[in-house]
């Protein structure tokens, strides 16, 4: 059976970053491959009932991943990720954004910087993802891409608002 590791999820109030950390029961090379090879990405990255379709991928600094999230109704949401730096198998940095089928980036939607770091933890691997956003408002569209209605939150409300008071 699979392990059920929790996700550490931290909103950094000072640096406007969202960090999450997750442990996986596999060696670092294999986890790295799952993050960086399109045929493996296509098998886990899409939300349930969605599928990932890679249009093109060029995994090197300066390269990109052009992909679509395909909804159950057949709708395609196209994404574009620029690879900024790559240090196998320690980590890589990207700039994410949305685009169309042709790979033309939608300048009206926010782009975010992502830094992925892979470290050993015994025989397991810990992946840390740090997302830097220009403003909390930038997240509306990104969050909406994968959102489902009807979920509720029980967390306190003002804490997160105050976390945005960095300007």
């Amino acid at each position, binding site marked *: 059976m699979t392990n059920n590791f929790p996700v550490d*999820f931290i909103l950094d109030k000072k640096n406007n970053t969202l960090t999450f950390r997750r442990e996986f029961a596999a060696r670092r090379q294999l*986890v790295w491959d799952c993050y960086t090879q399109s045929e493996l990405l296509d098998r886990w990255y899409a939300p349930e009932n969605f599928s990932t379709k890679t249009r093109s991928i060029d995994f090197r600094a300066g390269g990109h991943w052009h992909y679509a999230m395909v909804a159950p109704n057949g709708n395609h949401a196209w994404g574009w990720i620029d690879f900024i730096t790559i240090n196998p198998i320690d980590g890589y940095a990207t700039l994410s954004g949305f685009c169309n089928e042709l790979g033309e980036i939608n300048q009206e939607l926010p782009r975010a910087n992502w830094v992925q770091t892979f470290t050993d933890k015994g025989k397991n691997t810990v992946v840390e993802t740090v997302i830097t956003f220009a403003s909390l408002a930038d997240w509306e569209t990104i969050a909406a891409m994968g*959102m489902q209605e009807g979920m509720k939150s029980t967390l306190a409300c003002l804490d997160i608002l105050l976390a945005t008071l960095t300007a």
Partner: protein
Amino acid sequence: MRRDIFQAIADPTRRAIIALIALQPMTPNTLAEQFDITRQAVSKHLQILVECAVVSQQQHGREIFYQLELEKMKEIDQWLEQFRKIWDARFRQLDQLLVRLQEGKNDQ
């Protein structure tokens, strides 16, 4: 015009207004004293906050007080929580893929 919570917090002045009226309801005049911007500019921000339903107005005699609607603020938590859930589900899928890869069952 209906707006959403994210427009409310997109602007630093509006975030400051929210932080101030979170402590106590305030009139546009007392709010304007806190900022180096005109009363008109404060009113414009308040108007947007009202349209976002983050802030509501209450008439007390001749004065209008603006107060924070705490329920609306929870929307931010909700999408953060959804984002967390999406990644949690995604990581479980990766767990399963890793198990399959390690068992050598490369079932396409």
